[in-house]
């Protein structure tokens, strides 16, 4: 088991290393650096100013060397000003200027995640704050999505081919066929507009006090999550993710329902409800469990659209902002986080599978 974990962590490190290098390469192409200089120093600056800005900020060295700096394997660049004070990668990160006051190397290995150029802040702070916000969103999505998906899947799979099965399956398929950018805007129009949809009706009936039923903007959820400001973003993600889990559950359930022991139980005269709850459910939930775990990194993707749509600044939003502004170190950190999330969920899903299914043992 320990060996298994060690190997998994090893793979994770190598993956993260490869991935960050690809990201580093793609964000440090000359044209991308020019974009960075223009977003940082002024969009209408001349080419000469771009060159001098890049040089002053240490972007003029070979790419591999700078990747090493970011990792912390290579000493950070330094430059001495006319008055004897020193600037450099590590000096900026530690915000000191006296010679020798900053460490020689300052990269990931030393625990420095670098600085975000978009947010003018420590990358570690930006990422942790935004990840927290997304964590809340994901938590609620899972709380809504999982029971809903399992319920739909189990009800549909209980009696294969029945009318319930047909209608629930079609619902599940329809929900996977509706991407977030469609359902999100339809929800806003239906529930969060004072001009069309339900809200004006409800207002005229005197059912709701405010102008709209739900808020079409989740910014206020940063301070305080309420049912009203979080409902739409959560539903948008949950609905799209739900269909897939429901279909897996249904498939798994139909398979279990044809097993010998279920038939035996039925022949023994156990009531249908009892069979489903006592005998079928546990075995039918193994497959959905792994799928739900694997669904998490995928949700992290869907979150980008929803967070941008509802202007909720979470991890997906940071990813979007960092990519749109070529914020190199923030992108690198975000990809590290993404890899870790993907691989940890895979690990949990593998281990969970073993615990749920005693027939498999990890060797």
């Amino acid at each position, binding site marked *: 088991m320990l060996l298994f974990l060690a190997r998994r962590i090893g793979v994770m490190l190598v*993956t993260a290393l490869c991935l960050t290098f690809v990201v580093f390469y793609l964000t440090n*192409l000359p044209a991308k650096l020019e*974009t960075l200089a223009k977003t940082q120093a002024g969009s209408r600056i001349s080419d000469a100013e771009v060159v001098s800005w890049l040089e002053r900020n240490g972007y003029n060295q070979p790419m591999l060397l700078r990747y090493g700096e970011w990792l912390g394997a290579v000493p950070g660049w330094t430059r001495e000003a006319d008055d004897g004070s020193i600037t450099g990668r590590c000096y900026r990160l530690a915000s000191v200027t006296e010679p020798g006051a900053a460490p020689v190397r300052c990269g990931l290995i030393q625990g420095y995640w670098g600085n975000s150029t978009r947010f003018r802040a420590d990358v570690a702070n930006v990422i942790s704050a935004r990840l927290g916000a997304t964590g809340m969103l994901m938590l609620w999505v899972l709380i809504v999505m999982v029971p809903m998906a399992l319920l739909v899947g189990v009800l549909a799979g209980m009696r294969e081919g029945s009318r319930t099965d047909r209608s629930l399956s079609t619902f599940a398929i329809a929900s996977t066929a*509706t991407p977030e950018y469609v359902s999100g*805007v339809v929800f806003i*129009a239906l529930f969060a507009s004072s001009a069309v949809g339900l809200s004006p009706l409800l207002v005229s009936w005197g059912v709701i006090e405010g102008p709209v039923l739900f808020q079409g903007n989740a910014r206020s959820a940063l301070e305080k999550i309420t049912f009203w400001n979080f409902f739409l973003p959560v539903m948008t993600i949950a609905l799209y993710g739900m269909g897939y889990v429901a279909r897996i559950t249904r498939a798994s359930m139909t398979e279990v329902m044809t097993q010998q022991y279920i038939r035996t139980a039925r022949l023994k005269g156990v009531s249908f409800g009892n069979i489903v709850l006592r005998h079928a459910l546990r075995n039918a939930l193994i497959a959905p469990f792994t799928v739900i775990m694997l669904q998490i990194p995928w949700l992290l*993707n869907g979150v980008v659209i929803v967070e941008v749509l509802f202007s909720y600044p979470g991890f997906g939003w940071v990813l979007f902002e960092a990519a749109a502004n070529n914020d190199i170190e923030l992108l690198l950190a975000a990809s590290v986080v993404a890899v870790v999330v993907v691989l940890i969920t895979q690990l949990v899903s593998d281990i969970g599978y073993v615990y749920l299914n005693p027939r498999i043992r990890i060797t």
Partner: protein
Amino acid sequence: MMEPLTWPQIFAQLGIQFWPVWVALVLLYAVSIRYRRRLGLYGKLFDSKIGMFGFALVMFWVFTALFADLILTHDPLAQFSGMRNAAPGSALRDPGNGYPHFLFGGDALARDVFSRMVMGAREVLRIAPFAAMISFMIGISLGLPAGYIGGRLDTGLTFIANLVLAFPVILLFFLLVAPEIQNTAIPRVMAGILFLMPVLFFTVLLNARFFTQPMKRNLYVGSVLVVGLWAYSGLAFNADPLGVWGMSPNLLNVFVAVVFVNAPTVFRIVRGITMDIKTRDYVAAAQTRGEGPWYIMLWEILPNARGPLIVDFCLRIGYTTILLGTLGFFGLGVAPESPDWGSTINQGRRLLTVYPHAALAPALALMSLVLGLNLLADGLREESLKD
């Protein structure tokens, strides 16, 4: 100045405009149902109501894309003064000889929503199935040996596939579809590698089968190489001497990114199925017959894996359609005035609360196509399980 149309009139007009589609659908269904017993898995599809319905939805859009020029009422890029955000059924101010109404109204730039939706079908169906197909060929070409041979090859390929899958898709798109990247060699190099795969795939496929009959082999492989490399030079390097094959750098970039995202998933599916099938008796029989590994992979394992692959192919076209829309949502990729559904939804959604028609028409189109593909996949799955 004509009167605006009422909703029943709009639907009647729609029915008339779509006539080529109705004719084609009726013909297709009549022929298919008549000969369904001779048509294998495709024929069995007509035993399942769900499958038939899904197939009808898909074919509706396929025929719409094919006959788009006959169906549309206006130039999808033309703007008509006075028709900004016009309601569905509005009459044109000065129709001239053209069609007098905007059936689904006008968008924020006074273009005809209906014509854009129809033309959008062509845009979407031009990219999505083709991209899914290339992804499949790559996934199959790499997944078969990874699953069949295993060992180092498997470890290496699986690692690369997992690497790509660990990337958040959006980040990948932002990195690959950015305009700065277009001017570098990266998309060309990637296209060079990715588009080579189908050519190799068919070459090896035919070579493995016919290498005992050199005459036939030379003919088949030769013609595949000629056509394949011709298309390859045009698509990947924009160097087609005859100028038939070609892709704008922008489209190529989108295409490469979509294929790059999809291929690893297909690879994993194919690898899994291969590992399962290679333990079957007929594979062992082929091995004892002394067949080469490529023959076994391509002519013994692959045909037996077709069921799940066809199902996944249908789903993947739908997923690719959604993915292209996502690109449109973030303003990446496709040409700005392009009527493709993702971009039109994104443009229309801004004014959704007051002028819902501009976004709803393409949104419903996209949903119905993806729904159709999903139902089709479901029908196929059910019928193929009955074997």
